[in-house]
């Protein structure tokens, strides 16, 4: 393969070689250079609020146990017995002080420490003095405002440094709640028969909004004939490190704190109070931004936080070039009233998720891209030049700067890896 991207500023043309979506060798490099080295979202701290709470997670191709240990620490344990390797915990979630591997009945405290094994007399004194028979924890687990990430590279920069400019946007999401956000039950686990990078692109691609999701906007317009702001106006911003965001006006009701006519007058009052409270906490401008603007944030490589008609966090991982597994979370302010929570969840379900009126159409679009990449030999390049003529600081949310930011960072990692290989040959 020649180059991954063609970034031609003079011509205002940006091209991505389609083989990155289909090539198995590229996927192997992505595993080695991206998923083994970047910060990857494992979950939200509120998924395991109590000591002993745990959830099984698949992150970066690993089987992990996300666990709130008895000592109060949150850990990510590799879910494999140090003895012969079996998956130690087979339940998807629960609360337990101890995990026991059924194969030879070794047991571990929920911080991973080996505390029991049958036939102890067959092992030497001090068998586990160095702790090598404990369940191994991922060394790097760090949190930003409740969002928890792991990194399989012990030498990685801190999460704080990694997130960099993206923190400002995560703050805008989290600040909508005075008491913090919580993850709801019913994490949506689905798939898309397409390359994982297509979902990263799609998540900050407002250009597709109207053509792909017309049926959703039809419904919104029927509910609110005065809905004029379907223009989806806003900005596209490169946040560095491959992260990016689109921020734009909300053409729909936002549960914090933009009212829409399908909600009653009582709601309207509540929303005005919320808005006032936000202004007290953060000033008018920031309150306006929090309540009335949408944010779709991509945290490189595979976390998307959408603060739109509800808040969703999605993470995804490729099991092959043409297939990804997706986890979709819903986040909501702690202590939200049931009435508002239901309105929020209705908003969520109407657009987002595998049963929504929009997400399945995204899924279809990505699958059609993937299917047509069978033509890669003859038709080699994707074009994502939209808005390039405007210059980096002037990109609209409906432009493609956000995607170029992802690809430039991606290219710096994968092209370097490809060059290394050539040098070694």
């Amino acid at each position, binding site marked *: 393969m020649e180059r991954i991207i063609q970034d031609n500023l003079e011509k205002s043309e940006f091209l991505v070689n389609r083989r990155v979506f289909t090539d198995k060798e590229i996927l192997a490099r992505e595993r080695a250079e991206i998923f083994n080295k970047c910060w990857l979202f494992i979950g939200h701290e509120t998924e395991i609020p109590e000591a002993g709470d745990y959830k099984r997670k698949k992150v970066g191709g690993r089987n992990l146990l996300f666990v709130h240990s008895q000592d109060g620490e949150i850990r990510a344990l590799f879910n494999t017995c140090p003895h012969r390797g079996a998956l130690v915990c087979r339940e998807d979630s629960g609360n337990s002080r101890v995990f026991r591997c059924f194969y030879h009945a070794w047991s571990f405290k929920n911080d991973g420490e080996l505390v029991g094994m049958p036939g102890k007399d067959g092992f030497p004194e001090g068998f586990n003095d160095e702790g090598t028979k404990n369940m191994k924890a991922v060394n790097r687990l760090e949190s930003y405002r409740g969002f928890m990430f792991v990194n399989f590279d012990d030498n990685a920069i801190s999460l704080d440094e990694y997130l960099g400019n993206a923190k400002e946007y995560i703050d805008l999401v989290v600040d909508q709640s005075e008491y913090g956000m919580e993850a709801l039950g019913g994490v949506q686990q689905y*798939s898309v028969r397409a390359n994982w990078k297509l979902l990263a692109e799609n998540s900050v691609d407002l250009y597709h909004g109207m053509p792909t999701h017309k049926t959703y906007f039809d419904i919104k317009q029927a509910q609110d004939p005065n809905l004029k702001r379907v223009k989806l106006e806003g900005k596209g911003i490169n946040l560095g490190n491959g992260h990016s965001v689109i921020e734009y006006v909300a053409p729909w009701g936002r549960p914090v704190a933009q009212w829409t006519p399908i909600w009653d007058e009582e709601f309207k009052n509540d929303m005005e109070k919320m808005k006032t409270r936000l202004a007290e906490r953060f000033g008018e401008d920031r309150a306006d931004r929090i309540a009335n603007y949408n944010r779709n944030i991509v945290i490189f490589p595979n976390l998307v936080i959408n603060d739109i008609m509800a808040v969703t966090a999605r993470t995804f991982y490729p099991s092959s070039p043409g297939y990804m597994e997706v986890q979709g979370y*819903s986040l909501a302010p702690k202590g939200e009233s049931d009435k508002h*929570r239901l309105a929020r969840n209705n908003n969520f379900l*109407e657009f987002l998720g*595998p*049963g929504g*009126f929009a997400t399945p159409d995204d899924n*279809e679009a990505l699958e059609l891209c993937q299917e047509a990449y069978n033509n890669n030999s003859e038709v080699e390049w994707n074009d994502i030049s939209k808005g390039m003529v405007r210059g980096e600081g002037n990109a609209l949310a409906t432009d493609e700067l956000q995607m170029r930011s992802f690809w430039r960072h991606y290219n710096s990692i994968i092209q370097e890896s490809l060059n290394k290989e050539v040098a070694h040959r």
Partner: protein
Amino acid sequence: MTIKTLERQDIVDFLYTEAKILDEWRLMDWAALFTDDGTYIVPPIGEPEAIPTKSLFYIHDNRSRLQERAERLLKKEAHVEYPHSTTTRNYHNILVGDIESDVISVDCNFTTHRTKREVVDTFIGKIKYELVRENDRLAIQRKKVVLNLDSLRPHGKISLIL
């Protein structure tokens, strides 16, 4: 005609008719099977009794939204179902509750096969219906679909009415 003498077979025929209507993509006819306060819900996988303020459902439709769902899926711009996938629904193990009661509970197992672009996805699970007599006909007051799956993989979406 009155259906005072409702028999179990009438209920079974009603369910089979619903399946046939859905397989024929007569979605407006399907919506019309519901009462004015009818609901159609699909709770999260593994949480059949989930509470909608604590957990995120796949589908949690009141009467107007199930109508919107039906209308949407018939549009050409519902890209995921254009052209329409081919579906085959089968209902089994039908258990009809007290047929004399005002609200008749019916439980059944279902399989819904969907094929599109040479890929077959199979949804399996249980449906709980609450049926009522309305204007000398049967109508659905509540339809709850409990998916007996580990996840929505590889299906990826619920772009049809289960």
